[in-house]
C-alpha cells in the first residue's frame, strides 16, 4: 500500500524510516546496519550545519563551476515548433556531468566522519571518474569497482581513474556489469567496516543514500527554478530528465515537486525496444522488489531473480531505479517515458547540429522525448531539460553505430 501524499506534500519524503510510500527503506545485511545508521545520523547533522553547507557551496562554485547556465535553446525550440526549450547545462561541470555534485557532498561528509578510504561502483565510469576526482583533490585513497565487461568497454575512463590515482577493480562475478560492481562494493564495505566510506553514485541504495544523493543533486533544480524565474518571470510548465538510477532527474525534479503546475517527465532507457527483453526501464518494464538496500521497481524474472539491463548508454544500464521515482510514479506526480537506443542516437546528433552541444547518450534519452513533452505543455509553454552530461565519452559508441572508425 502506498501512502497517497496530500497536495503540496510531495517534497516531505522520505519518512523517518527512509520510506517514500512503500519504497526505499533499509535492506542490508546486519553487519552493515550500524554503519548505515551512523551514516544517516552523520548526514542529518551535516545537513543542518551551516558550516558544512558553506564549505560545500564554496567547492561547488570554485571547483565544480556552479551555477551551471540555464540556456535558451533557440534552434531546438524552432525545430520542435512549440514550447520554449531551456537546457540546464550540467555538462559544463568539472568532469562533464552532474555526478560531481553528489561526489563533492559525500566526500566532505566522509571526511567529517573521519573515514580514510573511499570505495565506489561505476558502470560507464562517469561516477568512478567523479569519485576519483574528489579523492585526488582531498588526498584520499580510492577503490572503484567496475564490471569486467565495462572495464573493456570504457577503457578511456579506466585510464582517467588511474591517472587520478584510483585503483579500478574489475568485477567478474555475476554478469560483470554495474549491478555486480554494486554488489562487490557492498561486500568491500562489509569487510572494511571501520575505515571505509561507500560513495554511491545515484539516488538509490539503503536509506539515507536516496535522500542524501537527491539533496546533493537538488542544487540543479534550485538553480533552474531561480534562473527560470529570472528569465521568464514564471515557473516552467515541464521538466524532463533521463533516468538511470535517477539522481540527475530527482535533483532537478525535487525543488518542483510541490509546484503541481510543473509536469515532471523522467525518461527510461528502452534499449532495443520495450517489446524486447533488452532494455533498462525499471518502471515501464519491471515491478517492485528489493535489491541493493532498497525497495523499488526492478527488472526481474518470475521467480524474483534480477535481470540484466541493456542500454546503449552505460549510465542508464541498471535494472533498478531510485525509490523516490517509484513512489512519484505510483502517486502520479511524475510521468516515466521511454526512449530506445536508436532514438537516443538520433537525438544526440540533432542537439549537436542544432545547438553545437554534444550531449551524453544518457541525456540524449531526455532530448529524444522533447517532441512529446513540448506538445504536452502547448505552444506558450516553458520546458527545462536537464542536460546531465557531455557526449565526449560516448564518441566511440557513436562512431561504431555510424559505421565510422576512430
Amino acid at each position, binding site marked *: 500500500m502506498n501512502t497517497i501524499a496530500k497536495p503540496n506534500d510531495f517534497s516531505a519524503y522520505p519518512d523517518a*524510516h527512509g520510506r517514500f510510500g512503500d519504497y526505499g*527503506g*533499509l*535492506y*542490508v*545485511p*546486519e*553487519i*552493515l*546496519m*550500524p*554503519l548505515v545508521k551512523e551514516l544517516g545520523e552523520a548526514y542529518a547533522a551535516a545537513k543542518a550545519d551551516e558550516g558544512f553547507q558553506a564549505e560545500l557551496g564554496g567547492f561547488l562554485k570554485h571547483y565544480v563551476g556552479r551555477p551551471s547556465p540555464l540556456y535558451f535553446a533557440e534552434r531546438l525550440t524552432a525545430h520542435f515548433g512549440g514550447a520554449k526549450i531551456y537546457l540546464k547545462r550540467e555538462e559544463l561541470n568539472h568532469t562533464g556531468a552532474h555526478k560531481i555534485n553528489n561526489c563533492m557532498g559525500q566526500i566532505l561528509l566522509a571526511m567529517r566522519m573521519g573515514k580514510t578510504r573511499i570505495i565506489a561502483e561505476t558502470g560507464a565510469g562517469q561516477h568512478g571518474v567523479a569519485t576519483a576526482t574528489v579523492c585526488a583533490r582531498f588526498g584520499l585513497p580510492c577503490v572503484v569497482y567496475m564490471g569486467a565487461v565495462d572495464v573493456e568497454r570504457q577503457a578511456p575512463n579506466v585510464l582517467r581513474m588511474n591517472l587520478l590515482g584510483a585503483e579500478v577493480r574489475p568485477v567478474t*562475478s*555475476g554478469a560483470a556489469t554495474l*549491478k*555486480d560492481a554494486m*554488489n562487490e562494493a*557492498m*561486500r568491500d564495505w*562489509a*569487510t*572494511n*567496516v571501520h575505515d571505509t566510506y561507500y560513495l554511491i553514485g545515484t539516488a538509490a541504495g539503503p536509506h539515507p543514500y536516496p535522500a542524501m544523493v537527491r539533496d546533493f543533486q537538488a542544487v540543479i533544480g534550485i538553480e533552474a527554478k531561480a534562473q527560470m524565474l529570472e528569465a521568464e518571470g514564471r515557473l516552467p510548465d515541464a521538466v524532463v530528465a533521463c533516468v538511470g538510477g535517477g539522481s540527475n532527474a530527482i535533483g532537478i525534479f525535487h525543488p518542483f515537486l510541490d509546484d503541481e503546475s510543473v509536469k515532471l517527465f523522467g525518461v527510461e532507457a528502452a534499449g532495443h525496444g520495450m517489446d524486447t527483453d533488452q532494455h533498462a526501464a525499471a518502471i515501464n518494464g519491471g515491478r517492485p*522488489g*528489493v*535489491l*541493493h*538496500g532498497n525497495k523499488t521497481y*526492478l527488472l*526481474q524474472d*518470475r*521467480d*524474483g*531473480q*534480477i535481470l540484466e539491463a541493456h542500454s546503449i548508454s552505460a549510465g542508464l544500464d541498471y535494472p533498478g531505479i531510485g525509490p523516490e521515482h517509484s513512489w512519484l510514479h505510483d502517486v502520479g506526480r511524475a510521468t516515466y517515458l521511454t526512449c530506445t537506443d536508436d532514438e537516443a542516437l538520433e537525438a544526440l546528433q540533432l542537439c549537436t547540429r542544432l545547438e553545437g552541444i554534444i550531449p551524453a547518450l544518457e541525456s540524449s534519452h531526455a532530448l529524444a522525448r522533447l517532441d512529446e513533452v513540448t506538445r504536452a505543455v502547448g505552444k506558450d509553454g516553458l520546458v527545462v531539460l536537464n542536460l546531465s552530461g557531455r557526449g565526449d565519452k560516448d564518441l566511440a559508441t557513436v562512431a561504431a553505430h555510424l559505421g565510422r572508425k576512430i
Partner: protein
Amino acid sequence: MTVSRIEARFARLKAEGRAAFVPYIMAGDPDAATALKILKGLPAAGADLIEVGFPFSDPMAEGPPIQRAALRALAAGTTLDTVLDTIRQFREGDQETPIILMGYLNIVLNRGFKAFATDAAAAGVDGLIVVDCPPEEAGPMADALDAAGVALIRLATPTTDDARLKVVTARTSGFVYYVSVAGVTGVKEADAAAVAPAVARVRAASGLPVAVGFGIRTPERAAAVARVADAVVVGSALVDEIADAIAQNRDAGAKVLETAGALAKSVRSARVSRD
C-alpha cells in the same frame, strides 16, 4: 509444530553435551538431483541441522564460493518451487533433522510473505534466514512466519553492539546465527578466541542457542568454535568441494559428504561435556 524440531534437536545436543554441526549447501547446486542426494546423505554424515541456500542472482553478503554456487544452481534451472520440492523429498525420509532456508529477501517478497511461509512450512522447512532483511523491515514477514510456525532466525555480527543486540534478538526463535567475521562468506577465517565472548553475549541477550558461521573452513577451526558455540556452520568449504569435483569430473555428492563427515567428526569430538 515445526519450530519444535529445532528445539528438540538443541535439547538433545545439550543432553549429549556437544555442539551441533550445521552444513550449508545450495539447493540445486550443481543440479537438483545431486543436491537432493547430498541433502539426504548429510544426516548420516553427521549433520545435526542443515542450512539450505536458495539462490539469488545478487547475493551481496556472499564471497566467491557461494556466489558461484548460486550461479550454478540458477544455470541448472533452480527456482523457489524446485528448492521446496527438494526439501519435501528430503522430509519423506527424515522427520527429525531441522532444515533452515537461507537466502535473500527479493525471492521471499516475490512469492509473498504468507504464501512463502505456508509453502515452506508445508515442504518441511523449520526456519528461515533472510540475509538482507534487518529486524526494522521484517515485521510483516515475521508475522507470516509466526502464523505458519517457521522460525525467523536472526544474524548478529561483530558490529552488533549491546543496544542493537536487543533489537536483533527480539521476535527471534530457534537459535541466533553469529556471523564471526566482518565481511562476506568464505573469505576471512574466524578467530575462535574472539568468538567466545561474542557467543556468550549473544546467548545472554537472546536466551537461545548460538550458531557460529561465516569463517570456518577446516576441521581444526570447527573444533575450536565447537568448544564455545552451540552450533558450527560450514558453508563455503563444502560448496567449494562441489566446484572442485566438477572441475575434476568427479562425483560432487561423494566429495561433499566425505568432507562433511570429517567436519562433523571433529565437531563431535571437540567437547565431551559442558556443564
